[in-house]
């Protein structure tokens, strides 16, 4: 039996999720033994139109060319996983989706906007094609990626873990930054998966993994207001990595 094949595609993004893959270290070497990696530009493998069993897609759709390309990626892939904030919710660049007049956004920034070929909106991958599984996070953690791929290779569907960061944080034995320091931690409304990285360093979660299931955002807003945070800074904090609330929803 030939090895399963894998491709890593990049759309509008910072490449951080691809780096999370490269940072897998030994696990990446292990992965390379069990799958044939056809396309992974950050690792020097280029074959964009290869047909593969698993496609990992990083980045958001922001150009007309992207719109065409993501459809090609979809038709070339058996199982498509969007990974990272950009691919799952449009990413930081989806800030422009909130502009009063998105068509004019580029004109406000660039002196010669005619050279910029860009859509009015930054969109998650699922806005254009069917996505089989999503990995949230900015960037995703190496462990998430290897777990999802390993589960698929073993013939099972990956588990969509939408639990709150607080649960993961307490399992890791971390001390609550909100309770001990009044920090504006977004852990109670944020999806787990990072291993409580920020709280482990005494820093409040800023929500880069997106919304958890059954999130009480208005409850947390009121609580943070009670801690003395102005409503606009709470709003900014909640929209820092996933600015477009319409793309925060579940698939």
């Amino acid at each position: 039996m030939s090895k399963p094949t894998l491709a890593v595609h990049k759309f509008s993004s910072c490449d951080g999720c691809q780096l999370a893959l490269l940072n897998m270290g030994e696990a990446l070497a292990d992965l390379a033994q069990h799958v044939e990696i056809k396309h992974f530009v950050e690792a020097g493998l280029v074959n964009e139109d290869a047909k593969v069993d698993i496609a990992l897609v990083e980045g958001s759709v922001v150009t007309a060319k992207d719109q065409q390309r993501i459809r090609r990626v979809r038709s070339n892939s058996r199982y498509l996983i969007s990974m990272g904030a950009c691919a799952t919710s449009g990413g930081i660049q989806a800030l422009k989706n909130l502009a009063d007049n998105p068509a004019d956004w580029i004109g406000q920034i660039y002196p010669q906007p005619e050279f910029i070929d860009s859509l009015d909106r930054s969109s998650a991958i699922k806005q254009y094609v069917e996505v089989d599984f999503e990995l949230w996070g900015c960037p995703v953690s190496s462990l998430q990626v290897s777990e999802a791929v390993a589960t698929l290779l073993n013939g099972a569907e990956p588990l969509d873990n939408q639990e709150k960061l607080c649960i993961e944080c307490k399992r890791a034995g971390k001390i609550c930054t909100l309770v001990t320091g009044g920090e504006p931690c977004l852990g109670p409304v944020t999806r787990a998966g990072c291993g409580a990285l920020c709280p482990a360093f005494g820093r409040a979660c800023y929500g880069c993994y997106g919304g958890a299931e059954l999130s009480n955002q208005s409850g947390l807003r009121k609580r943070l207001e009670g801690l003395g945070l102005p409503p606009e800074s709470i709003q900014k904090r909640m929209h820092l990595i996933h600015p477009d609330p319409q793309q925060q929803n579940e698939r």
Partner: protein
Amino acid sequence: MEDKLPEFLFRNELQRLLDCLITKGFKVIGPKVEDGALVYSPLEQVAELPLGWSDQQAPGRYRLNQTDSVRYFHWANGPQALKPLLNPPRNILWQAKRQADGSLEFIVPDDSISPVAVIGVKSCDLSALALQDQHFLEGEYPDPAYQARRKSLFLVAVNCSTAASTCFCASTGDGPEASTGFDMVMTELEDGFILQAGSEKGREVMAMLPLTAVSESMLQQKQKQKETVFAAQSRQLRTIEKTDLAEKRAHPCWDDIAERCLACGNCTMVCPTCFCHHQTEEAQVNGVDSQHVREWDSCFGGSHGQLAGFQVRDSVKSRYQQWMIHKLDFWQEQYGRSGCTGCGRCMTWCPAEIDFVAEANLIARGEQE
């Protein structure tokens, strides 16, 4: 078990107790100040104990401050006590290896347990331990890993000399003095510690220490300390009879709680009696190795209510009801008493500052604080 008179250990001899436990092969765990909280963590020196530290707690708020007190144990509690030691947040149950012929070889993970001695355990947490024992050891299916850890555990309790605003163990009958479930119990006074054994192992350790007789004045100080802590507990959980909460699901208070509750699960994670867990399979990329893992779960999480393909608790209100009604009401049917031992952690570590006691009193008894 109080068959022997208590004896006294001078403050400057406390290191002898730690040395003695280490000599006996125990890994010693005790309270330390870490990341702004009192955390039970490995230690070998008395200097690592929280000298002069005290805690201020309120719903949603925990602060430590250092005083010029000479005491090591003049505080109420931190976010965890014994639960993570006996029922670790993450535990590998078994490992599996796929063989060349496709069959699976199952491997029992190495769970060799090193004996642990915990110093500074509070009365409420001993009561909670008794409840965890009931669940993990006395049910139909005793948990072997829990059993092994439990058997090798040596407990040095300390009687509380202060109470946080969130403490209410006096009203649940679980403190503030430890009466059972320990190998040794200490009462800290200004000059040192009144010690009393609670088990044969405890007597053996005490026999190795340079102890002196306890004076009448020391016993009076001990009594006074206990009365002070009783009086300091302003918060009281009223008696809740079976069905007192279960029959009040229509009470308007639940909706009010659900607006504030973040369903983050922190209360259940820090609760010393909560034991819910889920199990997952972690397969490796190589297609050969896999492990089956048990992790703490929470009734506030989605996986807890995901049964037979659908979510049975799809609102914050229904999850809060599950937590409170199970803890205070259904536990009585299940384990013969309420699942609350009055430690107050569910309130302190609630990021939404929900006052569990006030809400329970209001719903069950209609009593406003």
